């Protein structure tokens, strides 16, 4: 059989029987689209979070009281600084501020603006931040989501916080944080540590936690031991723990996606069933005719293999391209809510395109092998029966 004639017959068959294939293509496109969209979204989140994690402090130390995080004494800063190999020790105050009228919350982070490292990082982040003007009155930097929310509620230039003492604190909105960082800072308010202390009603010598770096990775376990010897009521969160968690982000064990996989597998079973039932009607006759005109079993299997391989490839390309456009061009409306939530401030995140070709290849195999098997096995069963019997 000449290849060109075979290819012509194959493509002709595909287009003549397009109504037969359209259902399978549609279902396949939906399955691949869903799987790929989730994969793209999780890969992009993973990439962005791991990239952000690089600049985060290596350790976070919090005091634990009765099994719950408690305010950490600021005096611990000096004790931690005393450990050899520790650098950039920074106290931090953070917490959520509840805006009761709309039942929304902001993440308020208080940092030491005069800390050299913080100052440099801030200058890099916001090119035109003038600390003199910033400190001329109580000021804060707000995330894009917070700015939009406050503007919608007529807080255009400042916002009044209610402190636990019942007093009010008016804080000027100095600048908006870059919207490219919405993934992290959408609901964030950054302000001087003293101001955050006042808003949350923390004591003079208290902070939420303390972060620090240990440049030598080999010393990390040693430092943890030293910390536990220094303080008995402490919880240490390591960067490598967080990194591991981000690397495990959306894996096959994740509850929601396990369900998604199950749905996919069940759908494949349905396709399998559909293919089995279809083969005993029109396709049975078609195979019988081909056998009667002299086609061998091998030729029939070859035709069926290529016919369905074309369908698999077309569905795969359409599904993946649609998923790519949905996630990285439209920024995954609806699906992003599963990953980022939608109960608080609206978050418009731009996802950085990240495509893991290995996992895409796995999806292709995971989809293509059962699909082809579901077609070739029944086709082979018909092909081995005598043509006269098959055409009945």
């Amino acid at each position, binding site marked *: 059989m000449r290849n060109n004639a075979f290819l012509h017959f194959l493509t002709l068959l595909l287009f003549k029987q397009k109504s037969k294939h359209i259902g399978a293509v549609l279902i396949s496109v939906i399955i691949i689209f869903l799987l790929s969209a989730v994969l793209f979204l999780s890969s992009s989140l993973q990439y962005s979070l791991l990239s952000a994690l690089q600049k985060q402090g290596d350790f976070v130390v919090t005091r634990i009281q009765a099994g719950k995080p408690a305010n950490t004494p600021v005096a611990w800063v000096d004790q931690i600084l005393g450990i050899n190999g520790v650098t950039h020790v920074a106290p931090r105050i953070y917490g959520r501020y509840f805006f009761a009228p709309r039942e929304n919350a902001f*993440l308020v982070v208080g940092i030491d603006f005069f800390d050299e490292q913080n100052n440099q990082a801030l200058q890099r982040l916001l090119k035109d931040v003038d600390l003199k003007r910033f400190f001329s009155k109580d000021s804060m930097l707000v995330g894009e989501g917070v700015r939009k929310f406050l503007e919608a509620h007529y807080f255009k230039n400042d916002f009044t916080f209610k402190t636990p003492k019942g007093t009010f604190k008016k804080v000027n909105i100095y600048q908006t944080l870059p919207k490219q960082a919405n993934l992290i800072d959408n609901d964030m308010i950054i302000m001087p540590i003293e101001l955050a202390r006042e808003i949350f009603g923390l004591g003079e010598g208290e902070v939420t936690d303390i972060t620090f770096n240990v440049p030598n990775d080999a010393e990390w376990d040693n430092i943890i031991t030293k910390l536990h010897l220094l303080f008995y009521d402490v919880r240490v969160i390591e960067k490598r723990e967080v990194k591991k968690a981000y690397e495990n982000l959306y894996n096959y064990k994740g509850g929601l996606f396990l369900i998604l996989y199950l749905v996919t597998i069940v759908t494949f079973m349905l396709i399998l069933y559909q293919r089995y039932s279809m083969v005993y009607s029109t396709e049975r006759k078609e195979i019988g005719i081909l056998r009667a005109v002299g086609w061998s079993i091998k030729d029939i299997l070859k035709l069926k293999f290529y016919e369905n391989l074309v369908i698999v490839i077309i569905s795969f390309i359409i599904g993946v391209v649609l998923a790519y456009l949905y996630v990285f061009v439209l920024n995954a409306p609806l699906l992003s809510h599963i990953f980022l939530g939608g109960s608080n401030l609206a978050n418009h995140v731009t996802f950085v395109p990240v495509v893991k070709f290995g996992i895409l290849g796995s999806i292709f195999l995971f989809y293509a092998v059962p699909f082809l098997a579901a077609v070739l096995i029944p086709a082979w069963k018909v092909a081995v029966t005598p043509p006269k019997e098959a055409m009945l």
Partner: protein
Amino acid sequence: MIKPFFVLVTILFLLIGMVAGHYLQYDRKTPQEALQGISAVTNFSSPALSVSYYEPRILFYETASNPAYPQMQALNRMDFVYEK
């Protein structure tokens, strides 16, 4: 190969080319710098989960507790997505 199939293949190649162009041309540096800048200033890298006030906002730092059954791990809505 019949003409409609050739047209279909061409369209698919165009789609792949369009996606490849977008993927290669995308400016990854600006968002990466912005995210790293925020992380360096605040020491936070957790995604801004848009969750209710009583739900954990910072991944892996905060955990939900069940007041009725303290011994039972409370199920956080985000646990479905972000495995610990």
